[in-house]
């Protein structure tokens, strides 16, 4: 018990020994080497009694790399017959710079059958989706959920920002009506 008090709330640096593995498991921000749990971050130790683990809450900036299950916001680049290439600039609500490249396959656009990818995405659109696979050559995204899809789109005739008007994407400048696979949050997604 005395040990527990000692291990809590301590400012640590990378490599600092926190416990032996028999005492505590390794939590977030720690690593194990030679049967010892050590800190991997600059931060403060946090002790979890339930899992008997020790974690380090980092004081330095968070690092974001694409991982399976993350919500990503991306700009659509080139749209081909079977897939669209995208540049991911936001992961789990955090901006990343420079962008990571990703791909959206036609089968991942909606739960239904998509015959033509141009009916769902266009170059320049901003899409929100979930990362489903990072083990292939590119980060694969899926839009197959009402939450996901295009959040901002531009008119392909005049370039105006399309507005959702009674279920139809209409250009306020030229009146053109377009089709996209829109997300529930179309036009309201906060990107700042």
């Amino acid at each position, binding site marked *: 018990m005395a040990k527990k008090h000692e291990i809590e709330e301590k400012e640590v640096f990378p490599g600092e020994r926190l416990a032996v593995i028999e005492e505590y498991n390794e939590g977030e921000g720690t690593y194990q080497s030679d049967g010892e749990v*050590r800190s991997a971050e600059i931060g403060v130790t946090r002790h979890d009694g339930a899992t008997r683990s020790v974690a380090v809450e980092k004081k330095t900036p968070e690092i974001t790399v694409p991982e399976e299950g993350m919500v990503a916001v991306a700009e659509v680049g080139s749209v081909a017959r079977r897939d669209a290439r995208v540049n991911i600039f936001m992961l789990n609500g955090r901006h990343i710079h420079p962008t990571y490249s990703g791909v959206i396959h036609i089968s991942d656009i909606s739960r239904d059958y998509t015959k033509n990818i141009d009916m769902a995405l266009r170059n320049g659109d901003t899409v929100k989706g979930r990362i489903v696979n990072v083990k292939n050559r590119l980060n694969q995204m899926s839009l197959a959920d009402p939450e996901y899809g295009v959040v901002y789109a531009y008119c392909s005739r005049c370039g105006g920002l399309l507005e959702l008007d009674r279920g139809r994407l209409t250009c306020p400048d030229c009146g053109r009506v377009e089709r996209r696979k829109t997300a529930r949050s179309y036009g309201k997604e906060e990107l700042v």
Partner: protein
Amino acid sequence: MSKTTKKKTTKRKTSKKKWTRVDGRKPDELRPIHIESGVIPNADGSAYIEMGRNKIIAGVYGPREMHPKRFSKPNMGILRCRYHMAPFSVDPRRSPAPSRRDKEISMVMTDAIEPALFLERYPRSVIDVFVEIIEADGGTRCASINAAAVALADAGIPMKDLVSSCASGKYEGNLILDLGDYEDKNGESDVPVAYLPKNDQVTLLQMEGIMTQDETEKCIELAIEGCKQIYEIQKEALKKKYGMVEATEETEEAPEEEEPVEEAEEE
């Protein structure tokens, strides 16, 4: 052993009893070191080091997507270090193009720092470390590693340990720590060492010149002692930035989070 060498040198050096280094330091004394972290607002992490008359700035970017993509690895990230000397860092002026020496030191730095990182967490990504020598005074590779390690920690990249680095060598028959430019060029031998202080592991060991096995071993030990001293200075620099106080004292925490943002907005 050391006694006999000392006697020899006293004979050589006319009448003076005690041998002194060119800059008046003790044999096991480091040059004055000053480290600052977070000096480049647009970098993810950065550090500035003054080690004697060395002046070095290091910036860390990433992990980010690697370009060209064919050099990235699908199962792990890549650490890319760039060591570069400014044309005005030495006298006479030097060409700004990366030389053979620059490329080698870049590689040596990468190899020295890589064991401290968890690169397997960043597949297909790269961590870029740019090191610029503003003023050189011997032992720049060690000082660069020190600055790069602080910059990496400042970027929030998880590390197994900070990397500390220091050289030792032989000058006029004496084993000395942290060679300056003159001692480096005119001495008998030079041993740069990079060290993970908390894991007690050596990640860089080079040697130039001639020494006996016994002397080499002593030199390595000397350099490791120097690395341990530098480690404390590196920690101080990071503590200062992240508002940390010594564990034993009362805590009055004022962590300045993402403070470079303000500076960036002013421009």
